Structure formats: C-alpha cells, structure tokens
C-alpha cells in the first residue's frame, strides 16, 4: 500500500501522518486523528455529513484525498466549541431541538457556521440554499433552518 506523507493543521494544531493514497480526508480525520465528529453518510458528496472547512472553504471531506490536504488548514466540528462553551449555533440547535438522531448535525453546524461567518444576516431562502447539500432524514429541516436564523439574529445582538 502506497503511503503519502502529509502535514496539515487541524483545528489550529499541527498534524503529521502517513496516509494511504486512497484515503479520503474524512478517513484521515476519523481513523488517523480520532476526530470522529465528521460522519460518513453517502461517500459521494450528496449528504454533507462529512462537511469540514479546508483553507476557509466549506467542503465534503469524503471528496478530498488526505494527500490533497498537504499544507492546508482544516477545521472540524471538534474545533467549534470554545473549550466547554458551545458555539451559539450548537447551543441554539440544542434549545430549538434542531436535531434528532444527530448523524447529520456536525455537518449542519460546520456548514451553518461557514454561512454566518460570511453572511451574518441571511434570509431564510439563503439559509435553505446554503444548506441544500446537507441532508437530514429526521427533522424535516424547519427546526434546523429556524435555529440558524435565530442564532444569526442572536449573534447580531437583536432581541428575540
């Protein structure tokens, strides 16, 4: 099995490893670095459960080879909370029951944070389009979209 030497930054920390050339970034995160928050759903880029940030760009980590991440900065769901303090999106998802089984949740949170970092004041339509690549088979999406809209308003300092 051919291995490729890869160095990258994951949630601000340097990581160095030998990865199988066929391994995806998702495989590397889960199996080599024990960061199992990113989930494998479809392995074809349709479900978004494996969403991570790669050099500040939202991507499906199942569609990136581990070797492609050489020199890149990766942010995963594990880096979202500030120690014990949840990110406002995480907190609101809990309060608004924007999850049931939870498999899709890390991907939704990473994707929603990417949206709010760029667009602090999105319309509901913008939220729905931005999250179209994240599939949830439990909630019917309404609670997720509501949680993202509420968090955005909270983060803008607007009263509920």
């Amino acid at each position, binding site marked *: 099995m*051919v291995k490729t030497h890869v160095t990258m930054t994951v949630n601000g920390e340097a990581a160095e490893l030998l990865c199988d050339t066929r391994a995806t970034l998702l495989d590397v995160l889960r199996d080599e670095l024990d960061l199992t928050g990113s989930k494998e759903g479809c392995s*074809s*880029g349709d479900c978004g459960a494996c*969403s991570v940030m790669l050099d500040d*760009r939202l991507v499906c980590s199942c569609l990136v*080879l581990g070797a*492609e991440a050489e020199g890149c900065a990766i942010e995963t769901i594990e880096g979202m909370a500030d120690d014990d303090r949840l990110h406002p999106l995480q907190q609101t998802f809990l309060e608004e029951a924007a999850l049931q089984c939870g498999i899709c949740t890390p991907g939704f949170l990473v*994707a929603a944070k990417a949206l709010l970092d760029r667009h602090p004041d999105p319309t509901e339509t913008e939220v729905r389009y931005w999250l179209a690549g*994240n599939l949830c088979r439990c909630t019917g999406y309404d609670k997720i979209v509501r949680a993202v809209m509420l968090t955005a308003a909270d983060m803008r300092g607007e009263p509920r």
Partner: protein
Amino acid sequence: MRYQAPGTIDEAVAVLAAANGGAQVLAGGTDLLVQLRAGMIGPEVIVDIKRIPELRAIAVENDGFRIGAAVAGAEMGEHAALKASWPGVVEAMELIGSTQIQGRATPGGNLCNASPAADCVPAMLAASAMCTIAGPTGRRDLSVGDVATGPGQTALGKGEFVVDFRLPERPPRSGDAYLRFIPRTEMDIAVVGAGVNVTLDNDGVCTAARVVLGAVAPRILLVPEAAAALVGARLDDDALGRLDAACRAACRPIDDKRGTIVYRTKVSGVLACRAAAIAFERARTS
C-alpha cells in the same frame, strides 16, 4: 496508487508522460473520487493539478478572461469582474452541486468528465470559450465544444490535460444567460440546459447570437439554426417562435428517468426562450 502534485504545467506534462496512460488527472475531485470509490477507475497515479498556480487563477487577458481549469466554482462566483462580464458562464458553474461541491468542483473537471448534462459547458460554448490543452507534444487550442466527444469520452490524447478556458473580449450591448431544468430547486443533474449569448445594436436588434443546448444529445449542442432565429430580430414573438422550433428540431435526447424524449424536446425550446429573454435584457442594460 500514487499521488503526485506537480507545481508547474511542464512538470505535470512530464509526470503524465512518465505514467504512459496509467495516470488520472485530478482537479476538484467531485466526480473523480466518487468514480475511484466505485471502482470505475483504477489509475496507477493521481496527478493533482491544483498546485499549479496558473490553473488556479482568473486573469484579465486580451480584454477577455483566462480561467484556470482548476479554479473552484465558488471562486468564479466571487469574481466580481468575471460575473459582470459573463453572468451566464458564472451562473452555469454555480448551479453545479451544493455549497460544499462549489468549494471544490472546477470547470476543467466539468468539461473533462464529459457528461452531456454538464452545466458549465453550454454557457462556455455560447461564450465561444477556447481551451488551452497541454501535453507531450506541446500546447494546442481547442474549442470548448470539441473537448467532449461523447458521454465520458474526450478528444484529449494520452498525457494531455486542459490548462485554461479563454473567454473573448465582450462587445458593448452583450449579454449571456444559462438556465437548466431539474425537477427540484437544487442538487440535481440537468434534464435540459440552455445557454444563450447575444450582442445587440443601439436599437435592440440582435447582431450576433450563439445558442447551446445541454442534456438533449450525446454531446452538448451548438445550434446555429437557433442563433439564426435571433440575428436580425428583436426579442418578439416571431423570433421566439423560430428559436423554440429550431431548438426542438436540434434535440436528439434519450428517454430516461429524468425526462422522456418528448418532454426534453419540449423543454429545450422553453428554456432557450427564457434564457434568450434574460440574455437580451442583460445586453440592453450592459
């Protein structure tokens, strides 16, 4: 399987030549990694072209644009000047997949995957885009419409790859548009796609047009008869009727779960007329 990421075009040419046909070029990977996992391909070497700076750049050149083959869709969408000049090309690229896919998917990959339903290709062909091809015998130019020769098939020789797309200078009062039909609003493959690019005179009469249809034939179709329906005309019912008829006559679609032959044929004319209306409006206000 080995992975190589050359830093220059010449280096990529050398790596591909050394692999003697056993290599697969990797751009955004949104099709390639799926094919790899499904066992549809089993290359000895993956040649990642994203570390080549020219392939990742959008540049103004000869008053037109040069778009590197490995530029991501999101990067095209964020390029204000490109979007202002060629909104149809940019909106076609941006229709591909989700936000996550947009972070990776490239026009070079969309072209070389050679799907008849590729979204960015009809808009690029309507824009008269030319591709630079690099390979063991040097560089050559190819129209974007001549790269894919059939579903999954390209005109690229052994060791060749697409370097960039060149969009020509925009004449005054020009506009383009691309529309596709899918049964939902996001995340699907075109049932029909239509790209229209027009130039108008001061009176709003069309002086030049290109009309391109996707997903209605084994290859993406440039339809000169549809363009002829627009040239010399304003956007009136007569011109739209001729455009509709010319598009329907050009279709040679398949029947599949996404659409029947009759349906795709009908929709091709409808979409072309709607895309033409947007392109005319953009040309009038450009």
